[in-house]
């Protein structure tokens, strides 16, 4: 008796492919950067980061890279940058858990910028 059938092998591949793909950074065009300096973390950036990561995973968005950066941003923290080739750089302020979910669902998934949360910031030094 075969230990693994053809369909078993294929389902392992399907399952594991998803995990391996998360490491593949080629072809990922949308970058989300969460400011995680001391003041950012104090303002709740850790929750923001985790929420974004979870939601992106839930939605299965495989073109997104989530990274962190240090502080260097003034208020209103937590601050999140979203960069996409089409829409360029958009910066959001006061990103709480609820906003984080919206960023993923509206901006990342559907390409709609959250105008009410958008802020203008000078480039970091």
């Amino acid at each position, binding site marked *: *008796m075969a230990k693994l059938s*053809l369909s078993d*092998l294929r389902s392992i591949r399907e399952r594991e*492919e998803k995990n391996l793909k998360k490491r593949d950074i080629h072809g990922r065009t949308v970058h989300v950067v969460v400011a*995680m300096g001391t003041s950012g973390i104090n303002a709740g950036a850790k929750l923001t980061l985790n929420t974004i990561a979870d939601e992106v995973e839930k939605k299965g968005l495989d073109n997104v890279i989530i*990274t962190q950066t240090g502080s260097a941003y003034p208020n209103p923290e937590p601050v999140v940058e979203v960069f996409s080739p089409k829409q360029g750089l958009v910066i959001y302020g006061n990103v709480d858990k609820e906003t984080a979910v919206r960023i993923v669902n509206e901006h990342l998934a559907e390409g709609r910028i959250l105008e009410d949360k958008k802020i203008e910031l000078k480039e970091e030094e």
Partner: protein
Amino acid sequence: MGFKNYILVCGGTGCESSRSDQIYHSLIDEAQAQGVSDQVQVIKTGCFGFCEQGPIVKILPEDSFYVQVKPEDAKELIAEHVIKGREVTRLLYNKAPRKAYEEVEDIKFYQKQLRIVLRNCGSIDPENIDEYIAADGYKALEKVLFEMKPDDVIEELKTAGLRGRGGAGFPTWMKWNFTKQAEGDEKYVVCNADEGDPGAYMDRSTLEGDPHSVLEAMTICGHTIGAHHGYIYIRAEYPLAIHRLEVAMKQAREYGLLGKDILGSGFDYDIEIRLGAGAFVCGEETALLQSIEGHRGMPQPRPPFPAVKVLWGKPTVINNVETWANVAQIINKGGAWFASIGTADSHGTKVFALTGKICNSGLVEVPMGTTLREIVYDIGGGIAHGKRFKAVQTGGPSGGVITEENLDTPIDFGGLQKIGSMMGSGGMIVMDEDDCIVDVAKFYLNFTVDESCGKCAPCRIGGKSLCNILEKITQGKGEESDIQQIQQIAHAMRIGSLCALGQTAPNPVLSSLRYFPEEYQAHIHDKKCPSGKCKKLISYEINPSKCIGCTACSRKCPVGAISGEVKKPHRINGNVCIKCGVCKETCKFGAIEIH
């Protein structure tokens, strides 16, 4: 919750020897200690190839390429990079952080490379079969077991034009076809992992970084030719590669990808490892097969060729590791795809172990037809310490030197042969102006003399005689007639030896004689070694106008050959000097000269 960062730690032998295993464990411990073990996955991969800069740690998704990492750096990497999201600049290869959404900047070392054989090395965990499966692993086996006929497989290899990567470049499809057509119910598949060229480690790295690619290919071959048993012949000096192979085979058996009734196809196949004691001659296929059977590793006359009748008297396919590693890709992507890469004469890619006096030594895989200049200067970063390029030795002890004038020759099987060298298994040793060509030839010859099995007189006696002549020349006792004698002995060895070891042993001498006749003449006529390597032909002297009498050299000299008063020029007593060169290394004023 998903992982936010993936840390890839190189687990090749090179990086492991610089404590990469400790780095791996420190990273896991630190992630735990700093409370982020649920956010970061640490993976030990195969060789990244950029061995010069090892140990290498790569963190995704930022694609931060950290080099020369130490176990002590783990704490900082976790605290700074993973937790705070700040790259640890001092450990980055290019020492400059970049904004997250900037294009991933390619490192020059990787730009001209194309990775087919090494496709999974440095990206998957070689000890986890699931990762190999995820990277399209065992897909080719599926195809071969359920969709293709054995003849289709051979046809695909024929279209691909895959040639043996062990050195001789024999078409792989022909080997498989001979064995398939050979009569007999029992046949064998053998993987030659007895890599022995000085400085070559392509096969080791492939097995360490992607062992399943070889297992899958051997199983495909077994099904194609009708064999149920495979052997991997590997030298015991490769403990890490053996370990990874054993883990891979165990996992494949658990999944039933080796063993009885593979994937329910009714096909039975299993693989066994045979350890060699590390004799160079066992890389020769007939000697290797003798060794598998438990005999002394000595070459046998051919015919019969292995394809028809060899292992246990049965038809056998024997391919080299790198050849095997190409097979699954060819089945997956098609022979035409493979044939589109490389030159008309040689398709696909070739892995080279670039070593010697080069800035970026490491493992490189390039399409056939890439020029040596591109490998040495673009990928290798040129000659180390600003010295002048002298030559490259390809093909190891069976190959020859390639000089400046041939640097633009496209590298393929035919191209290298035309300029008096050979592809060999892929060792590439770069020499600079400080290397004496006679000394290098002597080194290779000493190697083949040591490794000769002693069966045939031309190799056993010829090799030793050649060595003696070269020794004489480097001692300043060379005579005009020596050159002619070298050529005569070389000719006899070439036609009289049974196997390639003896036939090709004189190549390094002949090829250096062809490209550097003036250097041999300098040794023989003028009793001089132009690069200052041959100790009997040089003397160390102190240039009194540069020496300030600091006494540094005389304090370092192990035999007390240097004398002089403080703040006055010193002298070297030539009768006492052992020419170790320590004084030259010590002197800060360049006052010590070689004559």
